[in-house]
C-alpha cells in the first residue's frame, strides 16, 4: 500500500492539539490561582477562628492588608501572564494559518507547474527518439531537431520563470538601475522580438525619448514577457501594438493584442503566481503561468506597476507597465549627449511607417 501524503492541515494537527492542551492547562491553573487568592482572606480568618483565637482589630486589619496585597500582586502578575498567553495564542494561530496557506500554495504550485514541464520534455524526447529509432531522411531529421530545440528552449524559459519567481519570493528583486531611454531600448529590441514571434505583426509606437531610471535586463524581461503573452493570446496573423510614451510623470510601456480579452477573469487574480482560475484539468493557457507575476514584481521594484485591461474599443487585451520618469534635468542631459551620436529613438519607430500615424 502506498503511504498517503498528509495535507498541511493534517501535519500540523498533532502539535496544535498538544499546544491546545497546554494552553487549556494554563487557563485552569490561572483559574485555580484566582480562586486561591480570592478566598485566601476568608480561609485565614476561618482557620484562626477555628483555633479559638480572638484577634485584636489591629491584627485583623494587618492580616486583611497582607492578603489584599497578595491579591493585588497576583492580579498584576497573573493578568500579565494571562495576557502573554493570549498574545502567544494569537501569534501561533496566525503563524500556523500562514504556514498552512504557504504549504498549500506550494503544493498547488508544484502540481500546476511540473506537468507543464513534461509536455515540451515529451515532444523533444519523441523527436529525438524518432531520429534514433527510424531511418529519417536528412530533411526530416533536421526539422525534428529544430522542433526539439524549440521545445527545449520553451522548457528552458519555463525553468527560468520558476527560478526567477523563487528568487523574487526569497530575496526580492535586485536591480542595477541606470538612466535609460526606454523608447530607444524597445526599438533596439524590435528585430529580435519579430524574429521570435514571426506568427504575429509587431508594431511600435515610440514618438519621443522616454527616460527612466531602470535596470536594462529587467526591462527587457518585462518587454519579452508582455510580447510573448500578446503573441500567444492574439494568435496567428494578428497584430501586436507596442507603445512607449511619457504619460504625466510616468513612463508607460503598453502591449496590446487582438486576442479574446480576459474572458471575465479578474486581472488581479491572473497576475498572482500559483493561482489558476477554473478547472485545473481544462487547459486555459500554456506555460507555467508566472510571466505576468514576474512582470508585475519587476515593475514594482522600479516603483511602478502592471495593469491589465480588456473591453477596449477594438477588442483585445492591453498590458501596461508604468514606472517613474527620470527627472527633467537628467533626461535633458542624457538626450543632449545621445543626439550627437545617433539619430535618436525615433529611428526604430520610423522603420514601421504605419506606427507614427497612429500616435494619438
Amino acid at each position, binding site marked *: 500500500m502506498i503511504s498517503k501524503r498528509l495535507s498541511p492541515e493534517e501535519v500540523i494537527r498533532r502539535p496544535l492539539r498538544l499546544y491546545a492542551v497546554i494552553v487549556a492547562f494554563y487557563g485552569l491553573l490561572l483559574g485555580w490561582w484566582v480562586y486561591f487568592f480570592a478566598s485566601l482572606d476568608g480561609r485565614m480568618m476561618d482557620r484562626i477562628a477555628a483555633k479559638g483565637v480572638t484577634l485584636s482589630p489591629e491584627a485583623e486589619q494587618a492580616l486583611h492588608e497582607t492578603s489584599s496585597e497578595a491579591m493585588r500582586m497576583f492580579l498584576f502578575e497573573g493578568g500579565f501572564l494571562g495576557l502573554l498567553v493570549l498574545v502567544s495564542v494569537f501569534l501561533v494561530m496566525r503563524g500556523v494559518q500562514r504556514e498552512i496557506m504557504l504549504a498549500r500554495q506550494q503544493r498547488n504550485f508544484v502540481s500546476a507547474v511540473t506537468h507543464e514541464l*513534461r509536455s515540451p520534455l515529451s515532444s523533444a524526447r519523441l523527436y529525438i527518439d524518432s531520429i534514433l529509432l527510424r531511418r529519417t531522411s536528412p530533411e526530416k531529421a533536421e526539422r525534428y531537431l529544430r522542433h526539439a530545440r524549440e521545445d527545449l528552449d520553451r522548457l528552458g524559459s519555463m525553468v527560468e520563470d520558476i527560478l526567477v519567481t523563487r528568487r523574487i519570493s526569497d530575496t526580492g528583486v535586485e536591480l542595477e538601475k541606470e538612466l535609460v531611454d526606454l523608447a530607444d531600448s524597445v526599438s533596439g529590441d524590435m528585430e529580435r522580438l519579430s524574429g521570435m514571434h514571426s506568427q504575429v505583426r509587431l508594431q511600435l509606437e515610440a514618438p519621443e525619448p522616454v527616460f527612466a531610471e531602470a535596470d536594462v535586463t529587467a526591462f527587457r524581461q518585462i518587454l519579452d514577457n508582455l510580447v510573448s503573452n500578446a503573441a500567444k493570446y492574439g494568435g496567428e496573423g494578428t497584430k501586436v501594438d507596442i507603445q512607449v510614451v511619457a504619460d504625466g510623470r510616468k513612463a508607460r510601456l503598453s502591449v496590446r493584442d487582438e486576442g479574446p480579452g480576459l474572458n471575465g477573469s479578474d486581472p488581479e487574480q491572473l497576475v498572482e503566481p500559483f493561482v489558476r482560475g477554473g478547472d485545473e484539468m481544462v487547459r486555459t493557457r500554456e506555460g507555467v503561468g508566472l510571466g505576468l507575476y514576474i512582470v508585475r514584481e519587476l515593475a514594482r521594484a522600479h516603483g511602478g506597476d502592471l495593469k491589465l485591461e480588456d473591453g477596449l474599443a477594438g477588442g483585445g487585451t492591453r498590458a501596461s507597465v508604468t514606472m517613474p520618469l527620470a527627472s527633467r534635468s537628467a533626461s535633458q542631459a542624457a538626450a543632449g549627449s545621445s543626439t550627437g551620436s545617433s539619430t535618436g529613438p525615433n529611428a526604430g519607430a520610423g522603420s514601421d511607417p504605419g506606427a507614427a500615424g497612429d500616435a494619438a
Partner: protein
Amino acid sequence: MTAQRLLVVEDEVHLAEVIADNLELEGWSVDVVGDGLGALERVRSSPPDLILLDVMLPGMDGFSVCETLRGEGIQTPVLFLTAKSSRDDRVKGLALGGDDYLGKPFDLEELILRVRAILRRSEWIREDSPAGDRLVLGEAVVDFETFTVTIGEREVELSQKEVLILRCLAEQPGVVVSRAEMVDRVWGYDAFPTLRTVDNFIVRLRRLLEPDPRNPAYIHTVRGTGYRLTP
C-alpha cells in the same frame, strides 16, 4: 484491408505532430484534433479505431471527453496520454472508461506497443466469435452483438466487459478459463484490475443468468484456478 484509423487529441502542436508521424509510419491512418469539444464532434461523426487522448485540453478536459463518449454508448478504445500521471489520475482515467494510460514523457516504443495491444484487443471484440453471436443458458439468451440478455420477456443490457467475459468462457465450453486469461483478454496485458475484479463480474453475471446464483448451473467456479461454462 484499410488501415486502422487513430485519432490523436493533443493541444501541443509539436507533440501531436511527432506522435502522428510515428503512428503513420507504423501503417495507421492518423487524424489530429487540438481540443476536447472538437474531439467529441470528430468521434461522433466518424468513430476511429482508437483515440489517443490528452487529459489537459482547452475547452473540455480529456476525462470528460471519455466520460461523455461512454455515456453516449460509444465504445471506441481510449488511451490516455498525459502529464498528470499520479496514481489517482490513472485510476480515474481507467474508471471513466479509458482502456490504458501512459504518462508523459513516454517512450516511443512503449507507445506503439500499447497502441498495438489495444487495437488487437478491440479486433477480438469485433471479430465474429467462434461461439456464434448468441449464447443460450436455459431461459437466458445472451446476444454478443447487441450486448443484451433476454430472459423470457425481460431484456437487460450488459456492459462490454460482462459480454467479453461471457464470450471468453463460451468460446471454450467445458474448459477451465483462468482469471489471468480473462483479465488479459478482457482488460488487456496491462492488467489494471486485480484478479478479484473478475470474481465480482462473475457474481453479477450469475445473479443475472443463473436461476439459483448460490448453486450455479452454468458458470462454475474451479477452486484456485478460474471458471468453467457448461451451457
